[in-house]
């Protein structure tokens, strides 16, 4: 029972990370109906930046904040320079451009920092916390706190600020927003910046667990896809719930179902993606759109 509780808890911690990543995907999907396949590689690159800053002597939390800011700026720049020229191109072109970013970021990280797996310092204490007689890892607790704060801030931003409102308007009704004087192009760029920043947070949170190397995010991004699809890819709340559910389910499947084990966790995520898309394409929280065919 105790170990089940612990597994659920670390599932929630992983789920928080997937939720952040999924939220990054959802933010971009909502406004442009494109999937950014490079989201994971961008997060990986951000994580390397944080590692580099920490190596240069910055305190870990300061490096963390600086990285989030840098990632935000980088995301905005990427949208302006790379995505904007193909904004109106067909879906396939945008998919290929994001794959180009995927490859380029992977290569850049390899160029700057090499492919040797590095350990990433955890910003949390290493002694387990005793809560009600059950030992929980402080890492898990910390990850959950950071995820909750991040998701809370994002939600506050979108619900309570004028800029957030403008961004939602630009995503849902670009033409009308333009008439009202909202600069839709810049709203999209801000969305990319936010997505990159949230992605950076999830990268830094997961790096102490999966270690730091240029390929570290490739399975995380699949879990994030699964989380986003499960929650409904147009729903931010769905992304969060989907992430948490997925984290717990995958952790329990991996721990308690022998034939899945560690290796087939990814396959389980794939199965979840396919089953959700086939049975309920809108996900748990998405709106069902009717299309005549």
């Amino acid at each position, binding site marked *: 029972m105790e170990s089940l509780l612990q597994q659920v808890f670390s599932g929630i911690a992983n789920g928080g990370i997937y939720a952040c990543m999924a939220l990054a995907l959802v933010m971009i999907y909502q406004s442009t*109906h*494109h*999937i950014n*396949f490079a989201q994971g590689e961008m997060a990986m690159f951000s994580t390397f930046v944080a590692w580099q800053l920490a190596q240069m002597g910055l305190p870990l939390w300061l490096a963390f904040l600086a990285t989030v800011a840098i990632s935000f700026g980088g995301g905005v720049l990427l949208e302006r320079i*790379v995505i904007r*020229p*193909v904004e109106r*191109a*067909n*879906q*396939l*072109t945008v*998919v*290929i*451009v994001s*794959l*180009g*970013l*995927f*490859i*380029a*970021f*992977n*290569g*850049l990280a*390899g*160029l700057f920092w090499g492919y040797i797996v590095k350990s990433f310092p955890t910003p949390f204490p290493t002694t387990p916390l005793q809560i009600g007689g059950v030992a929980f890892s402080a890492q898990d607790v910390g990850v959950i706190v950071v995820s909750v704060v991040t998701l809370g801030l994002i939600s506050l931003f979108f619900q309570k600020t004028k800029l957030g409102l403008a961004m939602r308007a630009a995503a849902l009704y670009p033409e009308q927003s333009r008439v009202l004087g909202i600069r839709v192009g810049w709203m999209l760029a801000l969305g990319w910046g936010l997505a990159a920043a949230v992605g950076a947070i999830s990268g830094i949170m997961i790096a102490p667990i999966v270690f730091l190397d240029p390929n570290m995010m*490739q*399975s995380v*991004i*699949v879990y994030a*896809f*699964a989380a986003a*699809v499960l929650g409904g*890819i147009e729903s931010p709340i769905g992304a969060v719930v989907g992430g948490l559910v997925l984290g717990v389910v995958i952790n329990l499947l991996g721990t308690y179902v022998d034939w899945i*084990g560690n*290796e*087939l*966790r*990814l*396959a389980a*995520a*794939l199965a979840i*993606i*396919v089953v959700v*898309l*086939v049975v309920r*394409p809108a996900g748990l929280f998405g709106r069902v759109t009717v*299309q*005549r*065919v």
Partner: protein
Amino acid sequence: MPRPDAGLVVRVAVAAAVVAALPWIVPSFLVFDLIYVGAYAIAILGLVILTGMNGQISLGHGAFMALGGYVVAILAHSLGWPYWAGVLLAAVASGLAGLFIGLVALRLAGVYLALATFSLAVATPSFLKHYKSITGGFGGMSLAPVQAPPGVPLDGQHWLYYVTWAVAGALFLISALLVRGKFGRALRALRDNPIAAVSFGVNPYFYKTLAFGWSAVLAGISGGFLAIPTAFVSPDTFTSALSITLLIGAVLGGISTFWGALVGGIVIEFLPLVAQQVNAAAPSVVYGVALILVMMFLPDGIVGGVLRSIHRLRRAPPQPALDTPTPSSTTPITVSPQPRE
């Protein structure tokens, strides 16, 4: 069914002659690369049909290549079957898998399919590692090198080159015949305007599943022909990067024509080597940036760009881009088939 025009026959004949002569002209180490070009071209042809003609974006065809490659390897390694039988069975196995996934894909529109197939590509190596007793796990399986049959005055490498390209040629021909008529029209109609196509009586389930199945057959055969010259398969042969590379090859080559598959095969075999020359430290940075630039400036790929400039030189209006529906494509059933370039 339209008769192939004389220009096309000439172009195909020239291409065949070049393929036949190449191994005797280029340095022998390149023959090996050219075998891979043939293998890749087969898989990319499948994507030209599936993604280019039918609009289904697959980032997971490496999984079918893995299936094909492993069927060939397991039959040859564990049961001692000849390679040709293995390739045949690989085609059948991956075709069946493709039909099944094609049925699932019917429910996945546009970018959802890309997302699901991307996940398939990422998960493939973990399947291969998990079922160790069949696949050899991490270490993979080694295969015997190919020998020319007795009486053929070729070394193993040249023999394999000609077999690969003969198979590729046959598959290009079969595919061309397949998409020339009703099948190709239905695929394009379902891509450009599904509602109109369905109301004209085109069965979307039948044609889209069939397109997926056929593209998987091609990928499976391609996987076999990737495994045989390498004489080795392992989970690292069929990574997610392979799946991504296939689609990149199709798009860079030109996803709207079969010639694009040929050019795509050349591109994905040689572009990494060229990128290595440009910047030895970070070839994939060059690769990724080149990809983005091509998408910005040559969205129809290399073949599309070449066609466009030929048309401009002849002062004819340029070819419409892939996804801009021409007036005729809104009533796709009634138009006579366009001659393929």
